């Protein structure tokens, strides 16, 4: 059953929100799936939590630096 019409979406925002390393698009939460980036299997940014990448996605350098920082701290996946 539908409970009204849905206006809560912004295509342009979504289309411009993607991982700068692998162009994995941002996928908002839907049908039990958490919000995530559609990274490729070998993308370095896979280890970053979605929230962190949402903050940094417009700069590939910032993403690489964050990945390097987390690797140096021993992180292997999103926490």
């Amino acid at each position, binding site marked *: *059953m*539908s409970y009204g*019409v849905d206006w809560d979406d912004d295509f342009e925002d979504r*289309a411009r929100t993607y991982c700068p390393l692998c*162009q994995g*698009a941002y996928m908002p939460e*839907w049908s039990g799936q958490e919000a995530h980036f559609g990274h490729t299997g070998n993308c370095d940014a896979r280890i970053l939590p979605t929230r962190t990448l949402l903050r940094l996605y417009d700069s590939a350098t910032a993403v690489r630096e964050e990945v390097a920082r987390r690797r140096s701290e021993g992180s292997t996946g999103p926490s």
Partner: protein
Amino acid sequence: MSQTPRDRWAIPPKIGYVNAAQNAHFVAAPLLAAAAIGIAGVMAADGDKFRWPGPAMLLMTVCAVLFVSCIQSSFNAATHLFNPADLDAWYGTSEKPPDTVLMQIQQRDFQIWKSSSRRAVRLYNWGVVTLGSGTAVALSPPGNASSAHAVCRWAACAFVLVATLRVAAATATEARRRQHGRRNAS
């Protein structure tokens, strides 16, 4: 988390489905909802001329709600459906996001469209079933009808009922098939 395809656009399983669904949900459904509300209004005003005005009004009200929900669900579905030509038309000469990204978004939105669209189809079909049931109940003759009049109305009632049962059976079978398919997939 399953990887969304990034090298192709999603295509409907039947190319004509989008137009067919939009005609059913945005043209037929509002008309049928209006008809159901109209019949319920007639029942309210002239209840004594019908055998079971109360149940008929109930079925017509449920029917109108199902059709309106179908329209809403189909509206929500339609907002998620687009193809590469739509993107070209909207972006025009301004800089487009990369195709890889747009393909992923279109694939995900296509899944949302499919899911909402299926819900709209189910609502539409159950709307048809309740409309048929309500019509059959409304057609049953009142106790004071002449026998010739009663025979015609019972015949009309039976005719509508048979057609309605066929739609109900088809809808229920489809729902069971989907449920079975989902269970097998998981």
